[in-house]
């Protein structure tokens, strides 16, 4: 995995959106990024429909027990190298769902169970503004 170069990945991160039991608020803000006002296609960011085409997994919501195995499966289906972006307070640290009976854990903990070397981006906020998401993603891609 380390051998594959990430030189061009910065220029065209294709995004696949996974909802893991959030309240839909972050999802609406993610869709805002695609509107003419924010227009993420300027940075080559494109929403794709199959995890096989994706470079970035946008995960929103605390990971419920129900969706835990699905999230891990989707992560395995993404060709590496890839980045996992945790969108919103719930995905970063479970937010108000901390210690709730139905929640398996924050996104990074669930994904590290299948791949300890996964790369994460944290965009906190409830919900984060579209500008914050774009900045988080662009900053993260500059660093890898």
């Amino acid at each position, binding site marked *: *995995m380390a051998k*594959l*170069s990430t030189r061009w990945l910065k220029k065209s991160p294709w995004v696949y959106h996974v909802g893991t039991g959030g309240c839909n608020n972050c999802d609406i803000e993610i869709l805002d990024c695609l509107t*003419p006002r924010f*227009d993420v296609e300027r940075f*080559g960011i494109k929403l794709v429909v*199959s995890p096989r*085409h994706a*470079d970035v997994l946008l995960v929103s919501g605390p990971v419920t027990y129900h969706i835990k195995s699905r999230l891990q499966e989707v992560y395995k289906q993404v*060709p590496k190298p890839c980045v996992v972006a945790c969108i919103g307070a719930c995905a970063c640290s479970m937010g108000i769902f901390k210690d709730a009976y139905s929640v398996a854990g924050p996104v990074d903990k669930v994904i590290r169970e299948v791949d300890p070397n996964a790369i994460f981006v944290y965009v906190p906020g409830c919900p984060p503004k579209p500008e914050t998401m774009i900045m988080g993603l662009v900053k993260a891609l500059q660093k890898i």
Partner: protein
Amino acid sequence: MENLALYLLAFLIFPGFLFTGTFGLVVSWLDRKVSALIQWRVGPPFFQPFYDVLKLWQKELIIPRSAKEIGFIVAPFIGLAATSLLATMIGVINLRPEYQFVGDVIVILYLMIIPPLAIIWGGFSSGNPLAAVGANREIKLMMGYELPFLLAVATVFFKVGSVSLGEIIQYQQVHGALLKHPSMIVAFIVSLLWLQAKLAEIPFDISEAECEIMEGPFIEYSGPLLGVYKVMMAMLHVVCPWFLISLFWGGTSLQGWGILWSLLKYIFIIVLVILIKNTNPRVRIDQAVKFFWGWVTLLALIAMALMFLGY
């Protein structure tokens, strides 16, 4: 030996793979930029399609456990090779009509069926049910759009009295572009509808409907193989309009103002495709087949009748 080297040069560099591939990627930038402008956005930078393809070459290649490996890997390359050969034939005959041979239009028509067949093969080999649905729709759509297009091309054959592309181009150099006849304008409209379906653009992108069956046959493709498909589709966006220009609009030339005029013809057709794509919803497969076998075939028959009446 020299001939072989020349043929290889024509196939690999100009006007074959390298030229058409580069031009096709530029056109896919044009596609995204014009779509962005229509939607009041800024759109991607100029080199975006090149970044996309380079990135795909650096990604991991995943072959699903349920896939039939040979078909899954070979199909994109067969499609790419067929498209390169198409570009070579159409390009060489446009530049040097003396390289024609009898029935080369028929060879081109057969070669044009290979890229969809490659997509169908790859889709079925990937072992994904959504890909199978997409491949199935591609077959039905292909059966739909080929009939009226063959009728439109046959109209050109009868008008010129020849089945070779070189003679059709030479006829137009002597008598002026075929598009000045009313019958040919009708046949050209039929061909534009064929083009929309052939390039799998909305309203006829039924086989790779993104929100419905997740890109259909391409769903399991990742990394380099997806890149090959992207380049193939970009090249088809060059080759198919080029073929229509050669048939109806006097061909292309590389002398003097001919370059600009040829480019303008091409841009007119491709921007028309982009505009139709951006202003229409997707139709269902039964609607598409009914449309092609009904109205469009009727239009093609009208074109043929007009041609026999001498218009």
